Every structure is written in structure tokens, then in C-alpha cells.
């Protein structure tokens, strides 16, 4: 009997995705375990493996189609020699939906820019059918209805769908999403239309949401780097010239560790806002922004406060390399309790970063440069960088933010704590 091949849910939060490519063609024989298609989500491209064997009877959704809801029939698998139905087989309530299973992340496309546990695809401006009660409960719990699949009449989202989503996802501070806005185009202006990648859409939605719904404020401070640079020189000089134990610690590695130690000293910044409580994280997990083609992603150095500089250095290099190759696993970029964005290598003087919800803080690091500084009554030259902390004012007030950047300066300017 024919079996519907359904759009698989490749992660617990996935509700729709793009059918990137059919690996098998209509009429081609399929063995269990064969890769039959590639699905692109907001995070990654995943392979879909067949669970049953048979022949790919019909392709219902052509490749390149976006926004396919999870569990939509995308193809029909038939037995050898069996006639092929035109339409998907009607489902009975008892029918087991899965005839395909997600393979492990493979990757060609870029994962998402950040790490919220409840990340979700965009609404695309289509009308969401949901009961008033479902809307009310979703608003109260901060659940984006456009990310849900309705189980009510004609696919309407009803209360149980929202409650199931709420129990599946950890609490997030995400308020109701703003309606998507169409960008106006200047009349007569020529342009090339570059369709958004899935990642671009996620960046647009997440950052719009963060910037418009989280009350940001910024605290800026100059930090002298000379002691840290001297320490780095000493450490790197101690590295074997080559071989497996060789290392080269970067300034960024040391700042990751410095931020982690600062969060231990001022733990009230290592938090997230939720509707009824402030969540104070147990661990210090630093998300490090990495620029990748057409976007960015924030792989995580977990429990960075407990790790040595060499380990941090190795992890950051490995994560960044795999991030650029699109080979990060979801758990390597989902989560994190605080972010660092370093644009020092571009020579920028200072910048302010947009928060990465539900995190309450992100540190923007600019270039270290030699500047005149006043010491006592003397003007001397020091290597100075400007750091800007962005915080969520709902959970971090001004005095606390100031305390944090001072503590950070203290750690950086007295860097021995990074190694002991």
C-alpha cells in the first residue's frame, strides 16, 4: 500500500522548512536508510532518510519550495509495481505519520545566527487561523502562533496546540511577534531581487523582535590591554613550536574567559527575563558571534569560566571553522547565557550590539589601539579598547551594568586571574 512521505520535524521546534533538493527521482527504488531528500530549516540543511522501502511513486512538493509545514505529505512511497495515487493517502487518526526520519545534520547551508531555544520560522504574513482562547494563551506564554501547527477543524490552532507547544518549549521572554512589514521600494529605482535565505529571514525576525521588544541600554568603558597583551605574549612563547600540543591564544580567547569570570563575579547579569521570574543561569555559557557567508552564527563555549585558555582557544577555533563550513550541531549554537561580539579585527572604534534573547547581555568589543591616557598627572601611551555592554533593562539595571563593565575592566587589566 502506498505511504505518504511527510515533511519531517528535524528538531522539536521546527514547524516548517524548505525542501532544498530531491535526491531520488520519481520511479527510483528506495531502500530503508537511503537519503531521499534534503530539507533546509532555519538552522541547517538536513538529509531525510527513508524508513520504509519501495519506489518513490510521486513527488508532491517540488524542490525549492519554502515554508512547508511539518507533516505535509511531500511525496508518495509505493510498493514495487503498485499503481501510484495522485493525491496523498488520507490519514486516519491512528495512522503513524513518520515514514521518514531525519539524518544527522550534514550541511551546506548556514545555521541560524543565534541560539534561542524556541527559535522558529517566520510567519510570512499568511493568515494564522487560531481560536481566541489559543491566541490569548499564546500571548500570555509568549508563543508565536505562526510557528504552530493547528490540530483543530481545518487546521485551526486550538488551545491544546498552544499548551502542547508551551510544555514542549522552555520559558522564553519572547513577547508576541510584531506583524511582518513589507519593505517599501523607492519608485523607479532599479534593483536586483535577491531572495532571502532561511537564515536571513531568521536574522531579520529575531533581531527585529529583540530590538523592538527588549528595552536595551548600553554602557561603554575603555579598557587598557597592555597587561593582557604581555601575558598573551608570555603564554604563547611557552607553546611548543609545533606538534599536537602547540597553541596560539588570541586576544579574543582571553576576552571570552574574562567575560566568563566577570559573569561569575557579577552573576546577576548571567540571567534571562521571563514573564513571571528572572532566570539565573547555573552555568556560564558564552556565545561567540562568528561571521559566516550571508550571516552570522553564535557557537557556544560552554562553562567557559571553568576552562583553561588553551581549551577555550581550541574550542573557539574548532567551532568557528565548523560554523563557516555549516557543520555545527544544533546544540552547539542553541543556548548560551551571554554573548560576545568582537569587531576589533576591523579596526572599529566602538559599536553597540543587539541582544540575543533570552540572554540579558551582549558585550561588543572594538579594536585595541594605542591612545594617550592620563596616569596621575602624566600623559602616557597605552593600548586601549572600548567595550560596550548591551543589556536587557527588564532584568539588568544601570548600576548593575556599570558594576559588570568595571569588573570586566578589572579582570582584563589584571589578567593573572585568567590563568590561575
Amino acid at each position, binding site marked *: 500500500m502506498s505511504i505518504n512521505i511527510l515533511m519531517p520535524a528535524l528538531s522539536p521546534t521546527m514547524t516548517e522548512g524548505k525542501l532544498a533538493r530531491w535526491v531520488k527521482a520519481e520511479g527510483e527504488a528506495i531502500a530503508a536508510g537511503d537519503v531521499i531528500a534534503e530539507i533546509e530549516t532555519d538552522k541547517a540543511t538536513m538529509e531525510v532518510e527513508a524508513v520504509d522501502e519501495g519506489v518513490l511513486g510521486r513527488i508532491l512538493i517540488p524542490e525549492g519550495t519554502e515554508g512547508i509545514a511539518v507533516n505535509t505529505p511531500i511525496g508518495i512511497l509505493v510498493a514495487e509495481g503498485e499503481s501510484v495515487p495522485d493525491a496523498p493517502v488520507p490519514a486516519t*487518526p491512528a495512522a503513524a505519520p513518520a515514514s521518514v526520519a531525519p539524518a544527522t545534520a550534514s550541511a551546506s547551508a548556514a545555521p541560524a545566527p543565534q541560539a534561542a531555544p524556541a527559535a522558529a520560522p517566520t510567519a510570512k504574513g499568511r493568515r494564522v487561523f487560531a481560536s481566541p482562547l489559543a491566541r490569548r494563551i499564546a500571548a500570555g506564554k509568549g508563543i508565536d502562533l505562526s510557528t504552530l501547527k493547528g490540530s483543530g477543524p481545518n487546521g485551526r490552532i486550538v488551545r491544546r496546540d498552544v499548551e502542547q507547544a508551551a510544555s514542549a518549549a522552555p520559558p522564553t521572554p519572547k513577547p508576541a511577534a510584531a506583524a511582518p512589514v513589507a519593505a517599501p521600494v523607492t519608485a523607479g529605482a532599479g534593483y536586483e531581487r535577491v531572495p532571502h535565505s532561511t537564515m536571513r529571514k531568521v536574522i531579520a525576525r529575531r533581531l527585529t523582535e529583540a530590538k523592538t521588544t527588549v528595552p536595551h541600554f548600553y554602557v561603554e568603558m575603555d579598557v587598557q590591554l597592555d597587561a593582557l597583551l604581555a601575558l598573551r605574549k608570555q603564554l604563547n612563547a611557552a607553546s611548543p613550536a609545533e606538534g599536537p600540543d602547540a597553541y596560539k591564544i588570541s586576544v579574543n580567547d582571553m576576552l571570552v574567559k574574562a567575560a566568563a569570570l566577570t559573569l561569575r563575579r557579577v552573576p546577576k547579569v548571567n540571567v534571562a527575563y521571563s514573564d513571571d521570574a528572572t532566570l539565573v543561569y547555573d552555568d556560564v555559557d558564552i556565545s561567540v558571534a562568528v561571521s559566516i557567508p550571508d550571516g552570522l552564527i553564535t557557537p557556544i563555549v560552554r562553562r567557559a569560566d571553568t576552562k583553561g585558555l588553551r581549551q577555550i582557544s581550541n574550542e573557539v577555533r574548532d567551532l568557528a571553522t565548523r560554523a563557516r563550513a555549516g557543520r555545527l550541531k544544533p546544540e552547539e549554537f542553541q543556548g548560551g547565557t551571554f554573548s560576545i561580539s568582537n569587531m576589533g579585527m576591523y579596526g572599529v572604534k566602538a559599536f553597540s550590539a543587539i541582544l540575543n534573547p533570552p540572554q540579558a547581555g551582549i558585550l561588543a568589543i572594538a579594536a585595541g589601539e594605542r591612545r594617550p591616557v592620563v596616569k596621575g598627572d602624566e600623559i602616557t601611551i597605552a593600548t586601549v579598547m572600548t567595550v560596550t555592554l548591551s543589556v536587557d533593562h527588564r532584568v539588568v539595571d544601570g548600576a548593575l551594568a556599570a558594576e559588570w563593565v568595571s569588573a570586566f575592566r578589572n579582570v582584563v587589566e589584571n589578567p593573572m586571574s585568567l590563568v590561575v
Partner: protein
Amino acid sequence: MNTTQFDVIVIGGGPGGYVAAIRAGQLGLKVAVVEAAQLGGICLNWGCIPTKALLRASEINHLLHNLGEFGFAADNVRFDFARVVKRSRNVSAQLSAGVAHLLKKHKVTVINGFGKLAGMAGGQRKVSVSVDGKETVTLTAPNVIVATGARARVLPGLEPDGKLVWSYREAMVPKELPRSLLVIGSGAIGIEFASFYRNMGAEVTIVEVADRILPVEDAEISAFACKALEKQGMKILTGAKLGAIRKGDNSVTIDVTMGGKTRQVMVERVISAVGIVGNVENIGLEGTAIEVDRTHIRVDPYCRTGEKGVYAIGDIAGAPWLAHKASHEGVMVAEQIAGRTVHPINPLNIPGCTYCRPQVASVGMTEEKAKAAGHKLRVGRFPFIGNGKAIAMGEPEGMVKTIFDDATGELLGAHMIGPEVTEMIQGYVIARTGELTDAELKETIFPHPTISETMHEAVLAAYDGALHI
């Protein structure tokens, strides 16, 4: 063509079974209904429908004795009790014939006899049909819907004897109006018979073992109903236990113990209305994977039993024992068999109605249950005395109570007592089924003047306050 092979066999032609059969027929399935008695089942022949005909007569009697309020006078008002009962029977007969016509229209084969599951043959379910204990035919189908219904529960010592002690059946076709009557049990059935006989002129006493009448209703509605019925002259004994029963020639004396004190109640007739038991006997459940729990078949939310392809709906499949629940389950199962996507029934969306005077209707949770479920409540109340239409109609007795969840605005429950509330409760049922919140109910424009405005006011009362009180 094989005349004994079907897609679906429905055992029982009551409001669950015949509706399932019609729906299955509409969806192109070949259907048989096996019915041992009359199409329409208890509901249509011995329950919902004929009692409504009787209650209508009793309301007319009440009105005729209260014409003065409207400026009328009528002398020598009387009724022919036999004709009152006859009309009720005619109503049932008319509707039962209507069901036969509907089944024919949807090409459903009706087979008279007692249906019973009889194992499998060639991957198909067998159902044997017998008349007077003799097997007449065996039918086969991949799907069987068991809809055999229920019957009155019998208390020891109060077995219906056709003369002094009545079940609903005898109470529905009395030869003459008894002068006095004891109704045992104050659920919907007991209260409706009490209301009928009282409004026809009998002395009525109700005994209830629970601490209030209509025990499944909200406590405030129970109290309101109790007061209203007592005002009409009924005696209501709650928290009461029955003791010794002595039958005379044309009377019954029963010991009733309340609060440690025992009194004797002497009446001409007794109606026993103490619940129902499912008809699970002799229908071939033995030796199958179908589980029976206290005379009811255990089913999942889709009415599936332990045997694949065998479904159970209606009273046999458990509470609430209501015809509309049975019919809805019948439709759901028929659509399921036809491969449609179906939704399980939410028990909190099934309305309950009692057609006494004043009527009682409700849906969802009582205040007590909503509290126990951990909700923070907003409760609204509105009396019919604040409603223009109710006063104009001369029916100002009643109230509406709404219960909302403070956090979400969900209508957790709605409870009504008063004229025509059984016709109005569907408004709140729609609100619950459509998952409307207080916002939509507040914004709904109710027509004026209608008694339905009380429903709107009760919603407003739960929030910013009703307008007309």
C-alpha cells in the same frame, strides 16, 4: 450481491446508532443497523422525546391555572389524562417512523432482531442476529459499532412491578394520575417526572441520597431549583436514605432516614430514577479484548474498544448518558471509519439539560470543580428579574451564572435556570467549542428584548458589571 456483507454494522438503533448509520451512509459506506425494539431507541420512544410531550402538557395545565395574571379567566379547566398520554405516544410514533424513513433515504439496511458480536471470519467481524432467541442471520463487516444503550438501574426492593413501583417506562404511560408520588433520585429523569406530575396536580415528594437535588449541577443552581420546586409544593428530602418498604393495595409506605431521624412516607406510586446500567449482556463481549467496567464498555477518546474495528458509542460507552453525546460519537466514529480526520469529544463541551419548570441547563465546569482544578475564577451572575422579556412573559424566575478563568478569559462553565434555558445553552456551548473568551462574548450583540440578554449580562457581571442590575 451479498446481502449480509457490509462496511459497517451498527448494533442498536437509538440516537447513537441510527445517527452513526446515517452518517456512514452519507459517506458512501454500506451500513446495517440491528435493532431489537424500536428505531430511535429509548430517547425517542421512552425518554427524551415523549417526556417533553408530557412536560409540555403539564406546563399548559400550569398556565391554565394561572391565567389571572394575564387578565384571563377560565372556568372548569380540566384534562383527559389518557389523551395527554396518547399524544406523547403519538409524538414518539411519528418520530420513530421518521427515523425509518431517514435510514431508508441513506440506503441503510435495518434488520430487526438482537445483534451480538460473533467472532471473526476471513478477517471480518461477524454479528449474529436473533429473534426470540432464534438466530435468523449472520452479518459480516470489518467495522462494528456497539450502541446498545442502557436501562434503568433497579434498587433491591424497588423492582418495577408495573403497578405501585414504576420505572421511567411505566411512568411515561400512566393509566391515571396518581394522587401522590414519591420520586427516588433527583437527576434529570427524576426531576422531570416530578415536575410533570406536580404540574398535573399530584402531590410529589423527592428523595435524594446526595445533599442536594440535581447533584451534577452547580450548587447554586441546585439550591435555586430546590427552592423553586418547593415553592410549587413539592417536598424535597435530601441526604436521605431509604429504609423498609411496605406495599399496600394502592399505596406504598417507605421509611426515609434524614439526619438520624426516620419518617414514613406514604404515597400511591413510587418512581425509581436512580441511574442506569449499560446493556452489556449477551452481546458477545465475553472472550474478546473489549473491557467492561461497571456495565459500561471502556473506550479511548475515539470510541475505539480493545478489539480493532469494534467501536462503542453512547450510554454503553460511559457518561454522560445523553442522547446528543451518543449522536456526536456516532458521527465521529462513522467519519473515522470513512477515513476522515476526526476530533475527540471534550466532555466539558457537552451540555446537560433538565426540562423541569423552571428549566436547568449547563455546560463546562461547576464553580466547585473549576476551583478544584486550580483556576482563579471570575464569576458572573444575573437574575431573570432584571430582564425585560422575562418579566413581560411572566417568567421572571431564574438566573444565569458564568465562570471564567481569570488568566485566559476562558469560559470554564455556564449554568442556567429559568424559562427556555435549554434552548439558550447552545450559545455558551458554541463559545466553548469555538474557544471564545470573555472578549468575544462581551462584544456579541444580543437581540433585545429576549431572555438571552441574561446570558450577556452574566458575562458582563463576571467582569465590569452587568448593566441592568
